[in-house]
Structures are given as C-alpha cells and as structure tokens.
C-alpha cells in the first residue's frame, strides 16, 4: 500500500499495461520526452523506449487516426489528447470512425483503443481549456466513457479500458491530478460499467462523477452533521456502460435522487439518469429528481467567476435541504 497522486496513478496505470502487453503503445503531444503537460506520463519513455512511447506533432486528427489504424490491425494504443476541449478538432474520429467501424463492417473491424484526456474546470483556463465534455462522448453509440475520481480508480479503470475490446474515452480530471489516495501494491484491474457507493445513506441518493464526487461527499458530511440528512453518494465512474442497477437500487432505498454534474446543463449525463429513474422507478420517488449542474454557459476564466458556476458543496447542501424541506 502506498499513497499516490492521481497524476502518478496515470503513469503507473499505463506502465502496468505496457509491461503486461507489448502491443500496448502510447502516443500524444509532449507525452514522451516532456512526460506530459500535466506530468502524468513521466518516466514512460525511459521505461518503454521511443518505439512505444511517442511524441506527435500538434495534429489531433493524426493522433486519433493513427491510434485507430493501429488498433484495427492488432495494437492496443493509448492516445492522449492534451485537453478534452480539443476533441472538437478531431471529433470525426470520436463520432464517426472509432464507434461505427465495427457496426458498418458487420463486425469485421475492431477498434480496441483508449483515448486519455484532461477534462474539467478548476485551472482558470477559460472556456476552451476547462470544459467537461463527457456528454459529447456519451451520446455516441459504440463508445465507452469512463471518468475516475481517485488514484485507485485511475489505475484500475485504465487497465480495464486498455484490456477492453472497444474504444474507450478516458476522462481524467485536471483538478484531481494533485490529489492523493491509497493504492495497494501489485496489479490493479477494475471493471468498466460499475458504479460505486462511496458513502452509504438512507435519506437521499446523490450521484456524482470525477471532481464532483469529493464535493458531493463533503456536502453529505455537512448535511449529516448540521442537518441530520443521511445521503448516499454514488460515484458513477463509467457513463457507458452505465450501472443503472446500482442507481435504481439506491433510489429504491432512499426515494430521492440528486445528480451533481460539472457539464453545462443541456443534455448532461444526469438528464439521462433522471430519465431512466423516471421511467423505471417513478413510484419509488418521494419527490422530483433534481439536477445540480454548471449553468448553460461557456466557462469564465477568472477564479472568482469559475468558482461561482461549478457545483460546490455549499450549493449541493442548499439544494438538497431545500428539496427535502429539512
């Protein structure tokens, strides 16, 4: 057991998989010699050499296409797109190529690859380097979409993503890179499509993802200590496949549902979860499901403005209290 940062967990997860399987290769901008702009891939070039860990030009389409061509023909590439906002310049691969090649070819073409990317706000980078784009990916049939919230989950879910035979979008949260967590020694492999109850409770269910998980947990402690509300907090972890059984099971117990989403409001993942719960567990609910989101705006850069728009523990506490009338 060792304490590891989320940043170092990325490198450890990649290293674990590259050491296991010589077909795992890694490419991206500044990932090799520089060790990544977030220093999350330090040491990989030294450990695995320049044939397997490769710096690319600033050519996101080339990165994505090369990953796909390699995946189709037998490798297991991990591609890094530095900021998830840059998905917009290579979205053809995310929307049209990775997820549709197997279907269109009637199962002939495979695409086992992982795209890692820095997602989310908190760095005061403004509207083009801070977005939460999980909903861009979740809406496309054929993709899998994962977003870990702890160092342990980074390693386990990354390993699961690399071993998965489908294209996986792996969203690392930039504001979590410096956070720390306990990680056991030895190989760590998790399972895609599994949510985790990170705090059991009986009065309401709060569902969160990535950076929002720690904020939901903080809010839950406050609600318990100051207002006697016992919240169950679920870390979704995997948007596709989605572990609806854990979510529905929790709602059946608590009868109230809240989602905490960093993405802008329209078509956020929480809307899909609320829709599923409304369809399948309507009579379990004692009140309307409530979505706590970033408002539907481009993200402002200034710290005071950015802090005002992302869901905070206080906003979660207030919203839950108001909704429960406690």
């Amino acid at each position, binding site marked *: 057991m060792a304490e590891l940062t989320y940043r170092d967990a990325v490198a450890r997860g990649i290293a674990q998989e590259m050491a296991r399987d010589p077909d795992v*290769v890694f490419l991206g901008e500044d990932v090799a010699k520089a060790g990544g702009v977030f220093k999350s891939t330090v040491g990989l070039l030294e450990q695995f050499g320049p*044939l*397997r860990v*490769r710096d*690319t*030009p600033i*050519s996101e*389409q*080339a*990165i*994505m*296409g*090369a*990953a*796909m*061509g*390699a*995946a*189709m*023909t*037998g*490798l297991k*590439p991990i591609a890094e797109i530095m900021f998830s906002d840059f998905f917009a310049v290579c979205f*053809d*691969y995310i929307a*049209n*190529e990775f997820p549709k*090649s*197997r*279907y*269109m*070819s*009637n*199962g*002939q*073409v*495979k695409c*086992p690859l992982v795209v890692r990317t820095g997602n989310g706000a908190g760095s005061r980078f403004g509207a083009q380097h801070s977005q939460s784009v999980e909903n861009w990916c979740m809406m496309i*049939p*054929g993709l*899998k979409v994962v977003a870990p919230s702890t160092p342990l989950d980074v390693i386990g879910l990354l390993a699961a993503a690399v071993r*998965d*035979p*489908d294209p996986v979008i792996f969203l690392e949260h930039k504001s979590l890179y410096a956070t720390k967590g306990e990680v056991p020694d030895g190989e760590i492999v998790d399972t895609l*499509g599994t949510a985790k109850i990170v705090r059991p409770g009986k009065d309401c269910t709060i569902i969160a993802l990535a950076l929002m998980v720690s904020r939901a947990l903080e809010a839950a402690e406050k609600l318990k200590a100051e207002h006697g509300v016992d919240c169950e907090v679920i870390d979704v972890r995997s948007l*596709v*496949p*989605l*572990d*609806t*059984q854990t979510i529905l099971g929790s709602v059946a117990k608590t009868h109230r549902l809240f989602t905490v989403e960093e993405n802008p409001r329209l078509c956020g993942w929480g809307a899909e979860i609320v829709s*599923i719960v409304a369809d399948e567990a309507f009579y379990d609910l004692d009140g309307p499901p409530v979505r706590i989101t970033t408002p539907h705006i481009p993200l402002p850069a200034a710290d005071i403005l950015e802090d005002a728009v992302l869901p905070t523990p206080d906003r979660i506490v207030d919203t839950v209290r108001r909704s429960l009338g406690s």
Partner: protein
Amino acid sequence: MATVKDRAPGPADSGLNDDIGENKRLQLYRTQVTIREAEQRAFDLFLQNLVKGTSHLSLGQEAVAAGFAGAMIKGDLSFCTYRGHAHTLARGVPVEKVLGELMQRDNGLMRGKGGSMHLTSVEHGVMGSYAIIGAHLPIACGAAWRAQYKGAKDVSVCFFGDGTTNIGAFHEALNFAAVWKLPVIFVCENNLYMEYTPIADVTAVEHPAADRASAYGLERIVIDGNDADAVYRTAKTAYDKARAGNGPSLIECMTYRHSGHSRADPAKYRPEGELERWKQRDPIKIYRERLLQFGVAEKVIADIDASVRKVVDDATEACKAAPNPPLDIITTDVYADGGWAWRN
C-alpha cells in the same frame, strides 16, 4: 522514381517495355474490365431502383485501382473512400458481395449495414471505405505504424480524390507519415472535379497533391492514371521503397470520371467536349491496344470480356434473388461482445 509529366489527352505511349509480363498484364486487364462492368451494372441497377441510397462510380478511373492493387502482395492494406467499389473489387472481393451491398441485400459484403460508401473486406485487405473526406489518411498511417512497430513488411495504401487535398487531415497525415517514416502510400486520384466544382477553381497550386509534396519532404510525383502499366510501375517502386523502410510516397494520378459525382448526377458542369476527349484515353481502350501491341490474341481479350460479363450477370441475378437483411442484425456488432448494451 520516374516523374511522368501529365499531359493533355493523347495516344497511349507507355512503350513496349515488357517489364510487366503477359500474365500480369492480363490480370490488370481483367481487373479493369471487372470494375467497368460492375460499375456500369451498378449504374443500370440504380436506374431500376435496385441500387438504393447513393453510389459513387469509378467509371473511367479503373486503371488506378487495377495498377495499385496489381502491384500489392498479400497482406498489403487498402484504405478507400466512398468512391471505393473499384478498389474493393481490385483486391479480389467477389462482384456479388459488392453488388449485394449496393443493393442492400443480405448477401452483401456487410449485409447492408454499411452500404455503398463503406465497403470493407478485412480478409481481402480492404480495411474500409471512409465517407468523411480525409479521415482515412491518418488511419492508414496507424496501420503503417503497426507494421513498422511489429517489423511486418506490409504496406498501407490510401486512396482519395483531389478534393481531399484541401482538408486538414490530409496535411496532418502527410507530415505525420513523413516524420515517422511510415510504410504508407498516399494515392490521389485527380479526376479534375471535387463534386461539381473543378479542383483547379479552389486550389492554390496546379497539382493539388503533388505540388504539396515538397512541404513534407516528399518527391513530386504525377502520373498518367489512365495507363495501368504506368500506375503499376509507379506503385511497385513506391511499395519497394516503403518495404525497405524508406518512408511514405504521395502519388497524384491524373484521371477522369466518366460519370457524375454520385447517383444520377449528369455532370452538366463539365465543358462541352471534355468527356469525349478523355474517352479517347479510356483506360480500358488504352489497355486493349496495349495487349494487342504485345501480341495478345483478340480472342484472349474477348474471352476475358465474356467471362467478366458472365460473372457480373450471375452476380446480378444472385443479388436480385437474395433476401433483404433480417431485422435482428440491427443491434449486432455495436460493441465487441456482439451486441449493443450500454447499460445493465
């Protein structure tokens, strides 16, 4: 590599250099005739409403497909565009499988799940036909990267039209391939038109692919794309270079599509007489003359024509008799487990 200056339509002049040999020439001829007959049949079936959706024919461009495929060896990989029937057929995919997909029947190459623009036959090395302009150039780079990494000797060949040279992915892929010295060949089929607009009207240089080659440290290569021998020779040189670890090539083939861009486009945007001039340099006409020059008997040529016609006729009948795809394939192969489940 020899750089052949393109020229105005004129007589076939590839010369009587018998470096290719009769067997290969007969194969190149048969491939071209197969493409011609199958594409013409696709057009006829479209007019009968039996080919559905859209289709982009390579009538007039057969020599490019035949020449490049003819110089490939087993294991080489083709990446095509939506105008990909020719390249698919040239790798030996049965006509029935191609026509079946165009007719959206259960006997089609992908059982109707892909359609005319996405012909794929991995067992034949046809790694897909891509309908988003430029998308497959980086993908071909990735397949070539795998070959380089694994020490395999296969070459990835990526076919695209003149219009592709003005999209970003073209430039990203060329730089990427050149920097990584990948065993990939980029083949521009310059048929003078994008969809309806002449490429010359919207491009800063005369040769949209070749004139950009120097920006990526590559040789400027323009060839007569209507002469299968010239295409074959150029392809062979480029493949040898790639297999030897000497990196990518960019080859611009001057050619002309006899039909419109897609479906029933009558191509009225073309100046009067242009089509007729190019038909004087019809690749199949050129190649028949070439075979005769080399002493191939008229009967041998006629027998190839007849046998190809029969293959296409039989394929047509088989496709007409084939059932529609069953509805239960709608949800198969979205994910690798064979299904489409996105939740538990």
